[in-house]
């Protein structure tokens, strides 16, 4: 590797609020007039814009997903939900208590199992549809393994009244990151459950004691814990990420966004989105030896957006 490849780099976001606003307005109107059917195209338009305004080493990211793909996923996702509800309602209509109870239990278990399916599908789709310099990202996780992680972790979380959730979160992050590929670059996450638990414990307590003032330090700590523990690996060379986000920075971002959204009655949301993305990207530094010209295409194409759409419906915010 050449020596000039060893320095810190940044991702830059060039998006503008007014451009995003134009997209939003058209999206909202078309979504209303089509009674929601336009939603997949609306989402594709926003993602395409946002990815294309994000630059690394002079090249922009691309989102390849289309409204059509996501619409197919949307229909499948709706089909799944209708099916589940049909079973539930059918079971209740039998008016036999045992069957109704089984129906209800089945419904909730199915809904819970849908979460890992949705996360998995969404990651596969989102990663495959993301590229930089023509090289695609990919997610190699296996649904069965992920389900196992999820069910075990979920049950432990319930059994420990939520305390296990911190270890669970870190486990999921580790699994997900270890399965993300960017061409021949692999990822990993170095976080530790106990550390994460202590961080949260400290954050809750101090936020409580300071009547919420500490929460800005808390969110910047959580962000840093996410970013600082990310690693990329290119042929044995480790590339690290580092957060520079400060509590003051978060304060400006959150308060500013609140004011923008409230005083424009929500119409200013695109500007708030742009501010957030600017803040996030400008506060991530990528350090280490990376050869941006030597990334090889390795991943397969994946066009099924069902997971992505289920995620939207049960409102899972990814990463």
């Amino acid at each position, binding site marked *: 590797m050449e020596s000039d490849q060893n320095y810190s780099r940044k991702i830059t976001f060039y998006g503008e609020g007014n451009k995003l606003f134009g997209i939003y307005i*058209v999206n909202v109107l078309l979504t209303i007039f089509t009674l929601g059917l336009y939603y997949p195209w609306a989402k594709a338009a926003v993602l395409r814009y946002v990815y*294309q305004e994000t630059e690394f080493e002079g090249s922009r990211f691309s989102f390849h997903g289309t409204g059509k793909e996501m619409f197919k996923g949307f229909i499948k996702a709706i089909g799944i939900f209708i099916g589940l509800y049909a079973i539930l309602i059918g079971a209740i209509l039998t008016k036999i208590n045992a069957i109704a109870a089984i129906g209800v239990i089945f419904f909730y278990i199915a809904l819970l199992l849908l979460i890992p399916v949705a996360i998995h599908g969404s990651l596969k789709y989102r990663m495959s549809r993301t590229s930089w310099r023509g090289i695609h990202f990919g997610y190699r996780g296996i649904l069965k393994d992920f389900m196992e992680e999820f069910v075990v972790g979920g049950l432990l979380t319930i059994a420990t009244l939520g305390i296990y959730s911190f270890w669970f979160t870190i486990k999921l992050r580790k699994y997900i990151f270890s399965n993300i590929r960017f061409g021949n670059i692999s990822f990993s996450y170095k976080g530790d459950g106990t550390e994460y638990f202590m961080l949260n414990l400290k954050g809750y307590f101090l936020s409580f004691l300071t009547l919420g003032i500490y929460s800005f330090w808390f969110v910047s700590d959580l962000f840093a814990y996410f970013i600082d523990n990310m690693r990329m690996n290119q042929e044995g060379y480790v590339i690290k990420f580092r957060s520079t986000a400060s509590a003051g920075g978060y304060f400006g971002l959150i308060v500013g966004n609140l004011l923008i959204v409230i005083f424009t009655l929500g119409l200013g949301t695109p500007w708030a989105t742009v501010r957030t993305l600017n803040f996030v990207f400008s506060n991530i530094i990528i350090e280490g030896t990376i050869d941006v010209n030597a990334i090889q*295409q390795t991943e397969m194409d994946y066009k099924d957006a069902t997971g992505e759409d289920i995620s939207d419906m049960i409102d899972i915010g990814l990463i």
Partner: protein
Amino acid sequence: MQKFEISYYDGETSVSHNAFLSLQHDSWIIEYIHPLFGNRAVKWEIDRVERDMGFTSIFIFRYGDFPKQTLECKDERLLNSLKKFYPDKPFFDKKIDFLLRQSTTLILGLTASLIGLIICSYVYILPWFSEKAAGQIPVSMEIKLGEMMYENTIARYTKNDSLTACVNDFVKIIDFKTDYPIEVTVVAEDEMNAFAMPGGHIVIYNQLLAKMKSKEELAALLAHEVSHIHYRHSLKNIFRTLSGYLAISLMLNDVNGIAVVLADHSNMLVNLNYSRNLEQEADEKAIEIIKANHLNLNGFVDLLALLQTGNTDLQPFKLLSTHPLTKERIAFVKEMAKGQTAMKKNDSLEQKWQTIVAFEKR
């Protein structure tokens, strides 16, 4: 021939090639210098070129099967050249792209129409829709809702038990021509007011009862309030008034939410304003009831006159807003009373009325 400076990616590696694009009749030629293999030229057949629509000022095109080759161009002139070279190719002239690129005016216009749409739906569509929704609620549920609102409302009043019992006896003798179970509550209150709740509850302030001079007046008041119940006016009115909250509850698929909203706002029943049409409809039905029970319609006229005098009372606006069109209504009922025939004496009703009067005096 014009050449455009581009970045070219072959889809195999991330090497960014500084390349030149030249447009041919049926293909694009991309030329670059490969670090290992020297001068290279790639041909893209025009029919398989795809444009990435991203609403940015960068032009991105892709070609071939997965993994696709990609070119990025920041030269604005490319678009014009494409239009000139391939006037009937759709990929650089998507309507929505045109829409977004073109003008601020257009976007401002769209924004204005969106705001207009929101306001319009809040002011017109939502109330209309919630009134329709009120019509769809089953009677059993309406009665339950009314019961709940009644419990909430009545807690703030002092109930007059003996008068309540007397008036309910009075109610039983009249045929109100409705399936709703009518239940009157008389409360101690220094204003002249009465209101109906969905499902059958009627609340009468004792001050109004005290000012009445005949059983016909009370019968007319009851007939009018029952008509509001019968036509679901109160339910519709509540839904209209609370349409904003109700819409949110409906959107969140939260039936309990609807109940909570109604319970929280039961107090507004006191001041709820019926529209001209609803008052008219209730008056017509009341007249029908009074006639069918062979009672004198002039009692209705007296009642309206009594309510009108209430306008000069201490709280004129309250009654004014509850029954805003009293003058017109008096004229209408008077007109109807003129042609009235087949009135009968009703001794049992008179007897119940006298009981009420007797209790009044205590």
